[in-house]
């Protein structure tokens, strides 16, 4: 057993001990079957969907022989398990195939889209974490019914309003009527935030605000609920009873409320990283949602598969990160 020096570890902080290594390792191993499962689902759902990918590239009057040749060229004539294994082998090597529509590699299509979406997602998540957590804390710590009720009302509206509709309304107000912000597209600097100018930021504002609405509402509501629940617990009386300052009690409550909130934040972030088909289409933002939309519309199977897998892996990794973080904050999780 390590004996700590007096004076170290007195303030609260994340504890990283041997059990943490073990936990992280085990959690990492868990993600492998999950990712494998994702690849199987991605591979098979496309074969379950109606419509023939070959039909999209070939003219309608193509002869049966040409169809068969094309099928053979893409490997669509082989049994499904064989197709899956061959495909998986290539995917593991980083080769997601070639887009049927653009004839460019899937990776070269997906990578910039992921970057574009990430820029939007990080901005939106920054906004929603800031506002959602602030509002949630405000409502959770307030003893006044008015504050609590108005935050809850705001949160419910935020969660319920259809965000593509909100996006269009904002376009109408800020772009069409006020001419103050651009309606669509990215700024000239793209994702190179070092070269950002006012114009790039102005392009980001409307889509980021639109995307931030739902996570802000979700967070405000869950932070409020968690804080209120923790405040009702008996140990808060102990903290008051030993004469702690309000700031210190606040710290205790926040640390107790944090683990479930972090899980929610992780899910929200992962969802935003996936891009929003509707919002990116409304704002013509060239991200993954936009790409997925195009891939679906044109039945571009390799592109669709590649995009979905990349997004799913992001999702799994975000959850892994959140789980590890949660474990570091809450000692009780390490027991499990």
């Amino acid at each position: 057993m390590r004996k700590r020096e007096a004076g170290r570890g007195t303030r609260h902080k994340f504890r990283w001990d041997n059990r943490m290594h073990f936990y992280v390792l085990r959690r990492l191993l868990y993600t492998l079957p999950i990712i494998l499962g994702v690849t199987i689902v991605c591979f098979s759902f496309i074969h379950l969907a109606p419509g023939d990918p070959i039909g999209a590239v070939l003219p309608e009057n193509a002869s049966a022989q040409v169809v068969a040749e094309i099928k053979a060229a893409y490997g669509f004539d082989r049994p499904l398990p064989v197709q899956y294994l061959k495909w998986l082998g290539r995917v593991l090597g980083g080769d997601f195939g070639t887009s049927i529509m653009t004839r460019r590699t899937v990776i070269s299509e997906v990578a910039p889209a992921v970057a574009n979406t990430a820029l939007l997602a990080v901005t939106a998540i920054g906004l929603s974490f800031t506002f959602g957590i602030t509002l949630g804390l405000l409502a959770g710590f307030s003893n006044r019914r008015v504050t609590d009720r108005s935050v809850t009302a705001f949160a419910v509206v935020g969660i319920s309003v259809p965000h593509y509709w909100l996006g269009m309304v904002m376009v109408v107000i800020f772009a069409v009527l006020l001419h103050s912000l651009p309606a669509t597209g990215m700024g000239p600097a793209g994702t190179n935030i070092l070269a950002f100018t006012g114009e790039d930021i102005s392009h980001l504002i409307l889509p980021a605000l639109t995307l931030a609405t739902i996570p802000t509402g979700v967070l405000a509501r869950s932070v409020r609920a968690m804080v209120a629940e923790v405040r009702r617990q008996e140990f808060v009386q102990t903290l008051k009873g030993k004469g702690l300052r309000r700031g210190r009690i606040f710290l205790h409550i926040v640390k107790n409320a944090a683990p479930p909130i972090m899980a929610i934040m992780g899910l929200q972030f992962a969802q935003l990283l996936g891009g929003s088909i509707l919002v990116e289409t409304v704002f013509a933002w060239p991200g993954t949602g936009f790409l997925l939309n195009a891939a679906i519309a044109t039945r571009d199977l390799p592109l669709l598969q590649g995009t979905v897998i990349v997004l799913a892996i992001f999702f799994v990794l975000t959850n892994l990160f959140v789980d590890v973080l949660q474990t570091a904050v809450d000692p009780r999780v390490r027991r499990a």
Partner: protein
Amino acid sequence: MPRDPLVEVRDLSVRFVNRDIDLTVVDDVSFRLDAGEVLCFLGESGSGKTVTMRALLRLLPPHARIGGSIRLAGHDVTAMSERQLEAVRGPVGAMIFQEPMTALDPVFTIGTQIAETIVAHEAVSWAQARARALELLEMVQIPSAARRLDAYPHELSGGLRQRAMIALALSCKPALLLADEPTTALDATVQIQILLLIRSLQKELGMATIFVTHDIGVACEVADRIAVMYAGRFVETGPVADIVASPAHPYTAGLLRSTVSASTRGERLASIPGGPPDLTDMPPGCAFGPRCVSHGAACDAGVPPLIPFAGGRASRCLLTKEVVHAGQGGGSVSREAHM
């Protein structure tokens, strides 16, 4: 403080008020407590004993309204701001809770929870506070205390958790220790250890202590004086030995008769008929009236006063004088009371 009692409570009342109800849960409670003295609030659940104790440190929910006056070591607790109370909670009065699992913060180590209390009240560094926390854990006889400093509450057994809770309460050397059923949530074998520990620490440190319990055996074990509570009021107060020997109030007498002991083996245990009154629908006079064998018409005229009598005792019963004269068995007043 020359000659002033450590605790002086006068006409304390606590009401829980919200839009729909206004409920008086504690009423007409007055008592004094000197340094080093042990007072026990004895009563059933809902009799107001915990609320009375928590009122002393104003640890009540926001909808509670406190009336009367509470003086703790010269501080007027009822008139203080939350900020001023922070200085009282801990060094003047500290509290041990019934359920140590829920009363300790689950995501902070025991060491941090004790050390932060010391840091909050004294000008010491975290390192010094941690060293003090270690001493405190040793004082409450936690084995391998150095290792437990880094333990989280869920990693300790119930008994050790309660010891840690006691160490926490003692961390700022309080003049008054408030113990709210500190043994109720524990196994029977652990209960007596914790009880003995609290008693020996109380003697060693000379703390005044208020103990809340529903267990008359516990009261006899630790208390100098007891105050029996019923429906939010004291119904009988006095030295523990005298009350046990000759209870003056019919409720106390009923409590004592319904206690299990070796002498009642094989007999059917007596119980008080009925249940405590609904606080929203109190009887007109004596709250115990409807359950009392000696109940008479005069009892319903109004709430009887707490009638003082010989030996520093008092009883909230109109028949008080009679009962005492009839049952006077020359009970000597000893400060050390054992059953």
